């Protein structure tokens, strides 16, 4: 009991530090040109390649032409947005709707509009300022930096699932505080991360649209998300409101054919540096559609040295969802696809616990794999990572007390955690941190010599 209490107070201390960090960064950004254009949920995703970024936000009234204005920070004089030197990009605005799972599969109007704008022509390692609007009114200005694509890293979190309310005080506010804390610490630890990957179940509510809307607000609240691109995948919780998920994000190369159930939630891909990211919507039952999607994406990007697949429903994880019939189906049918297209690493969520597998081939660890090894060279199989909750809103216990056959490392500390994936030429390394004391839970690299 005393151990538990100690851990909790360490957690809340960390929480406070994270909140302060978040507050400071928002103060710093708010100084940059206050705006009068009312928006919510502003976030941006990596674009099709490193020179592009995709912006998305909600507005109350329709904009004839949503616009992102962007300028180099070096061109800004003082605190004013350098409108004269900014480039404008325009996009589309559409009415937001949802198909709630408990609503007889009928699409309903939610109110409000989803604005999406793609920005291109960005340079490496450059600081930018931007604002969004309808061409007349503007939001406040924010800033971000592009990074060096030759040697980069990105942050990863598993299910933030804001609103799960399964830990601590069991309120959305406490889930949101955990999320803010994790982002604050992750960005402080790796300030030059190129983007963030969130592996599905960003929000929780299955039943009530307004509850889920409040959870989205909490999810987008951290100011870090105005400066850090984010690539999400669709989790089973997000999926319960149908097309509502897709309105929140602006994802590059979004497939209208593969992995989609509602038209705006399909598989998508992007390239950053020498890495092809395959972002899959695992809510669809047909894995053959993902096979076709990956085939197409791989054919279009023959130069990518690394292939990383990201999706929600972990196939090799060890907690509550280990024996779900739908997960067993995916465990049988997804891996052959990754082996066929020589995917190097698979990043997953869903099971609210951390697991790293041995290199896997034909459903079993590659012969001779050392479970204690901290790195592997040119593995003859695929390494699967399952990430624990990024907010700490819910944790799952192990399905079996003993580790599974595929497992090389596992952790369930019931503390929020995040990971940093660094790609430095022929080396991909994944380091996972617990946010209470920022100690490293697991660190592992895959080396490519060929």
């Amino acid at each position, binding site marked *: 009991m005393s151990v538990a209490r100690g851990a909790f107070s360490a957690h809340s201390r960390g929480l406070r530090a994270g909140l302060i960090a978040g507050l400071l960064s928002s103060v710093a950004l708010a100084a940059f040109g206050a705006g009068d254009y009312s928006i919510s949920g502003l976030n941006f995703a990596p674009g099709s390649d490193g020179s592009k970024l995709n912006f998305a936000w909600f507005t109350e009234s329709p904009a004839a032409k949503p616009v992102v204005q962007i300028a180099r920070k070096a061109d800004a004089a003082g605190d004013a947005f350098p409108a004269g030197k900014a480039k404008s990009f325009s996009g589309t605005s559409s009415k937001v709707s949802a198909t709630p799972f408990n609503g007889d599969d009928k699409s309903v109007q939610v109110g409000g509009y989803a604005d999406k704008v793609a920005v291109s022509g960005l340079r490496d390692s450059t600081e930018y300022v931007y604002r969004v609007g309808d061409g007349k009114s503007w939001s406040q200005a924010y800033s971000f930096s592009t990074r060096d694509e030759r040697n980069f890293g990105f942050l990863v979190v598993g299910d933030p699932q804001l609103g799960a309310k399964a830990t601590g005080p069991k309120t959305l506010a406490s889930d949101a505080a955990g999320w803010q804390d994790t982002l604050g610490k992750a960005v402080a630890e790796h300030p030059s991360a190129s983007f963030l990957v969130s592996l599905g179940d960003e929000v929780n509510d299955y039943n009530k649209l307004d509850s889920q809307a409040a959870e989205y607000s909490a999810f987008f609240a951290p100011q870090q998300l105005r400066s850090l691109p984010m690539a999400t995948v669709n989790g089973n919780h997000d999926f*319960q409101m149908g097309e509502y998920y897709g309105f929140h994000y602006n994802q590059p190369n979004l497939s209208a054919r593969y992995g989609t159930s509602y038209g705006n939630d399909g598989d998508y891909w992007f390239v950053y540096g020498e890495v092809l990211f395959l972002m899959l919507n695992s*809510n669809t039952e047909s894995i053959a559609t993902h096979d076709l999607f990956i085939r197409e994406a791989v054919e279009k990007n023959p130069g990518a040295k690394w292939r990383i697949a990201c999706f929600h429903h972990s196939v090799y994880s060890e907690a509550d969802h280990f024996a779900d019939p739908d997960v067993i189906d995916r465990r049988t049918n997804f891996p052959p696809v990754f082996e066929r297209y020589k995917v190097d690493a698979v990043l997953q969520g869903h099971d609210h616990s951390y697991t790293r597998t041995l290199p896997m081939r034909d459903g079993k660890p590659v012969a001779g794999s050392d479970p204690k090894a901290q790195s592997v060279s040119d593995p003859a199989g695929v390494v699967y990572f399952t990430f624990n909750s990024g907010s700490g809103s819910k944790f799952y216990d192990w399905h079996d007390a003993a580790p599974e056959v595929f497992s090389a490392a596992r952790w369930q500390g019931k503390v929020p955690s995040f990971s940093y994936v660094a790609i430095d030429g022929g080396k991909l390394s994944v380091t996972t941190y617990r946010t209470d004391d920022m100690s490293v839970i697991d660190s592992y690299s895959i080396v490519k010599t060929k």
Partner: protein
Amino acid sequence: MGWAAVAAALALFAAGAVRFAASTDYCRLYRSSGSAKVSYERGRVLAVEGEELERDDGRGILTGVQDLAVRIDSGAHAGTELRIRNVLNYTTHFLLGKGDSVVLHVDQADPDHYIASVYSVDRAPTLLLFAALFAAALCGIGGRRGARSLLGMVFTVASLALVFVPLVYRGCSPILAAAAVGVAVIAASLLLVAGASAKAGAAIAGSIVGLAVGALLALLFEALAQVSGYTTAEADSLLAIAGRGGMKAGELLFAAFMVSTLGAEMDIAISISSAVCEVRGGNPRLGPRDLFLAGMNVGRDMMGTMANTLILAFAGTSLNSMILIYSLERSANQILNSNAVAIAIGQSLCAGLAVAVTVPAVAALSAFLLSRPRPRPAL
């Protein structure tokens, strides 16, 4: 005589239940786009064209790959012959040979592209064979009464799968549904076995007393131990489903407690009332007190083995967990307080208690009903 009518009534009930179960608003948790569709089709292994297998010495199972020539025998691709790589690992390990029937997972992405893989060996023939053996044994050894208990089983399965489950899914209180279906199953099974007799009446009333006591105990246990449908491993999916049809997921565990004790209650109830009936047949002048004591004597003998039966049944289903718990030397505090173990133990103990209480209830009821001067004539 009336058995044709009984069988007809049963058939009518089953048909109605099938209709009831089918007219539902199914959850489609996972949907696919456009023409994408997953189906499970029958197939046959035409040849094993190559294989690389090794025995995993540590674990004793075969792992590796088999390259098979397979013909799809049902569905849109019936008649198509194709090569399939059958993977043997810790998730799937079916060692296949030429001529084997298999079930294929056919994943159709679009009209031109599909992936077929081995889902399983075709288990339907084995299941049917064992069902036929079981039915033959019941009728062969049990004669007419065996045939009647077979009808009882059909009623039980139909009630649970086609009435109870759909009722609960549609938001009917699982406790009420379990109580209603429980009473119906008790009445139908015991009437089919013992006919419309005082013997059956005593057993039915006694079983219902046991069911009620079991329900009260389960409520008490759930409240004290703080377990519910929300603390089971399937909670997440159940909540998703609950969001749609209003299913009361929290009460499910309680209903499961009630359903799992039904069999034991009927078992001990009919044994006691049957014994009391025999005793009375041998000596019609015995009074209620003697009959009650005779029933209690039989019941006391049975109680021990019956409680054991229940605990063994639960142990059998949780054998894997027991081995894991043992091998990892977990502390008693952890084991007893985990959701799964607390629920399993609670379920066994509530069932055992319910069975124990059924004994005096049935003994008293049979003594009262059977010692009356004119027992109702059996049909």
